[in-house]
């Protein structure tokens, strides 16, 4: 690629800025151009999985229930912000922000899967697709004649991806699931938060982590399956992603420890069980004491990391606590639970009359790893994340200016990109049905009147 060729004297950072420049995304090709994905999904897990492929350039067709669309369009924080219209049939309502982030770059079609006519249309689309993503209750699509067993007869190259809570077989197969249930039962929920003796309780990860990250796992597996299909077998496959299984995969040392010693990993709050100092402390002063927003008016927090003996000595020197430095000079002493219960409060005492920015400045000067705990406003306004395109302004074709997240990673030659955040329900019915199902304007109108689309 000529534009990224090494130039004499170009520093590495300049090279990176040019190579990964988010403003140049549209001057480059897309990795998945030519792949077609059908996304018969709702909520977050399934939709996000398909959307990661849409960011990479696949033509993703999201198929929802006619008129009001899928459930996630009807969720939004405190029922306040909405993007209007919901659909051309329901202009007085909007799409809730719960939908944002899980469906970018997609084409939106509506279809009532219950009807034989809709099923016939879906089969026509599946015959021309590479990937099929769905998250209905296990066996539902099979019963309707549009499951893996039927579609692979029509299109043996189809990669059929089911995502859900517990999986379609085994004693818990009939259980419904949501992200928060996946977190609860998979095991990461019970470990997060303060321990009982400090007045704490298990804590939810604020994002729909098991969903959004589970979608990444699904997309990873789909990409691997496409690679195998295209390079080796010529055949599709069926993948089953259980989000509760994904969460259990994430538990680090917890399962080996339990299996060998019968010890249950407990919560350890904002500290770290394996490194000390490597935790989050409170800074007594608010960075925005006059703000009317309680999110800003509260005390600040900062993550501090100084786990090597040299770093810890420097931290103690900076904090001016020589007794701490002597007592906990050695890493293996410092890491003990009782030690941590003395070290972190001492650090908080030092930070009690400072803002997180003041603490960061002092620690930066001493070359000690730190990271202020930023709220979403502070993150959105970081030049670092803006320049890298992690958070960016989008001139959305339907909804106008929106701040939106960029892709989760950067590619030099075929960058993932953001084209639009979402569209109303059924916005692309005519385009997709005309192009892929060969339906005339008249037929489309009839289907619309019958609420089949």
């Amino acid at each position, binding site marked *: 690629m000529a534009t990224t060729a090494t130039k004499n004297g170009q520093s590495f950072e300049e090279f*990176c800025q040019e190579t990964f420049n988010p403003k140049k995304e549209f001057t480059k090709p897309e990795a998945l151009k030519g792949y077609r994905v059908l996304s018969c999904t709702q909520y977050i897990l399934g939709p996000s999985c398909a959307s990661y492929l849409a960011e990479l350039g696949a033509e993703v067709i999201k198929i929802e229930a006619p008129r009001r669309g899928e459930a996630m369009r009807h969720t939004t924080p405190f029922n306040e912000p909405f993007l209007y219209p919901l659909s051309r049939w329901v202009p007085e309502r909007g799409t809730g922000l719960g939908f944002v982030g899980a469906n970018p770059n997609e084409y939106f079609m509506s279809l009532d899967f219950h009807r034989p006519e809709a099923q016939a249309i879906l089969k026509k689309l599946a015959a021309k697709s590479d990937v099929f993503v769905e998250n209905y209750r296990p066996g539902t699509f099979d019963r309707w004649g549009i499951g893996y067993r039927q579609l692979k007869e029509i299109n043996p190259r189809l990669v059929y991806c089911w995502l859900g809570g517990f*999986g379609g077989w085994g004693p818990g197969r009939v259980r419904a699931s949501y992200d928060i249930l996946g977190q609860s039962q998979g095991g990461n929920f019970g470990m997060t938060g303060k321990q009982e003796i400090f007045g704490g309780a298990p804590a939810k990860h604020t994002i729909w982590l098991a969903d959004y990250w589970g979608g990444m796992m699904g997309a990873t597996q789909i990409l691997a399956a496409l690679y195998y299909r295209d390079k080796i077998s010529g055949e599709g496959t069926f993948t089953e992603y259980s989000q509760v299984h994904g969460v259990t995969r994430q538990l680090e040392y917890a399962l080996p420890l339990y299996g060998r010693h019968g010890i249950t990993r407990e919560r350890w709050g904002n500290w770290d069980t394996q490194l000390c100092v490597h935790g989050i402390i409170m800074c007594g002063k608010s960075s925005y004491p006059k703000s009317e927003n309680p999110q800003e008016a509260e005390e600040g927090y900062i993550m501090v990391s100084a786990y090597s003996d040299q770093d810890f000595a420097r931290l103690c020197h900076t904090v001016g606590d020589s007794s701490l430095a002597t007592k906990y000079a050695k890493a*293996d002493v410092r890491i003990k639970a009782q030690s941590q219960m003395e070290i972190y409060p001492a650090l908080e005492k030092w930070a009690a009359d400072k803002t997180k920015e003041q603490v960061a400045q002092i620690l930066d000067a001493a070359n000690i790893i730190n990271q*202020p705990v930023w709220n979403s406003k502070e993150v959105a306004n970081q030049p670092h994340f803006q320049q890298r395109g992690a958070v960016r302004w989008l001139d959305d074709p339907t909804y106008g200016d929106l701040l939106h*997240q960029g892709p989760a990673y950067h590619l030099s030659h075929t960058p993932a990109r953001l084209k639009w955040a979402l569209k109303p329900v059924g916005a692309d019915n005519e385009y997709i049905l005309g192009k892929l199902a060969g339906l005339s304007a008249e037929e489309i109108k009839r289907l619309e009147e019958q609420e089949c689309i």
Partner: protein
Amino acid sequence: MADTKVLPWPAVPILKPEEVYAGLSDQAKEYPLFLESICRQEHNFEKPEALSRVRVLDCTTSMMIGHWCSSQLSELGAEVIQVEPPGGDPLRKLTPFGRKEYMFKDKESGEECGAQFLHEMRNKFSVTMNLETEQGRELLKQLAVQVDVIIENSPPGQWDSWGIGYRQLRELNPRLIYCWVGQRGQWGPLKDKPGMLDPVAQSACGFVHGTGDPKEFGGQPTRSALWMADHVGGSAAAMGILAALLYRENVSGEGQFVEATSAEAIIRILDYSWAWYSMDGSIRPRFGNWDLAINIYAVNPCKDGYMMVGGGHDRLWYRIWRTVGDANPEVEEDILGDPHLREVADRLAYNQQVKTYTMLCEWLKDNSRSEAEAKLGKQQVASGGVLYVNEVAEYPHFKYRGHVAETDSPHYGKILYGTTPYQQHKTPGRLKWLGRPTGYDNQDIYRRLLGFTRDDFARLQQAKVI
């Protein structure tokens, strides 16, 4: 501690198919049994691996994001060579609260390895290489022409200044996919701000600020117990690598430069935080174990722990209160009679959520997790208790499906672990081995790929290059 008697896993036997599907009609059990026939992990080794032709050099050290990334590829069949500094990755030494007795000891050499590192060293070869020496970097260049993917995490520009960065290696191997991973990024204003391990990234992206109870409930910003952002960042890196691989095979024949960071991966999945802020200036607040956008959708205390109950729309809302009403009719009556709780949308307001969950807890306090789940399950309401690790390990559904399994390592003995969720019909992910002692594969890899002789090993070991 070592003398404590621990029951072998599983303490309770794993259910058999005839127990799981007892009493079902042939028609009702036909589909789940079909899924079992194509997805059960015991068939894994009858099937090929999706990425068996891909070779990956994971040169990351002291950082989890890279190890997680290469684990995704190795579970799917790639040949992943873990390059460690002589003496091993410092992460090998980590163990909870410094307790050496929790480490896993190699039967032969006695070398100890912490469980977290071990859990991610799945299907990987371990090779030692000192990249701080000129000779070590020569070895890397020789390997670079024989691999598809290199993953590294050195400080920004370090490899470039050493002559082994993307700009130099792509000249040697134009097909190479070169991936850099880190917490915040190798370019941009924060590139030189140090920090290798989560929760640096969790704190930098808005996640920590938004997790935990609100201040008025006595809460504060809360990190994930896990190095969770490193897992998400590693998954993002794996997606990027596979997309680059597909493009190379299908279109360009060329590799490319991939960069993934833990902070940005979480920014990507922090749902509506950014749009919401841009619409009305809202800052994503903490809302504890409740949800800003859905009610009922929360975890609350119950008789023996914490209980998740979910049902955002009307159908489930009424089923939940009907279930509650069986034992607490006054609660059901109060909720159903409240005009402010009649519309789905109205229930999201802060005060209505406080009321909803206060009333729900009236019922939950008399029900254990399993009792609540059984009662709500009858109404097809999604619910379940918060499980601790001992319960996860013994949960019948997880054991039956093999979400948790035990492997018998030739080096470390029996290890309980979380299996790969890449379940599949044709090319499933799988575990071949879990963990290797440091440099265990030096002989194999250096002989097989670089034609080393006895003399080479002796010379380079003495020079502390390998």
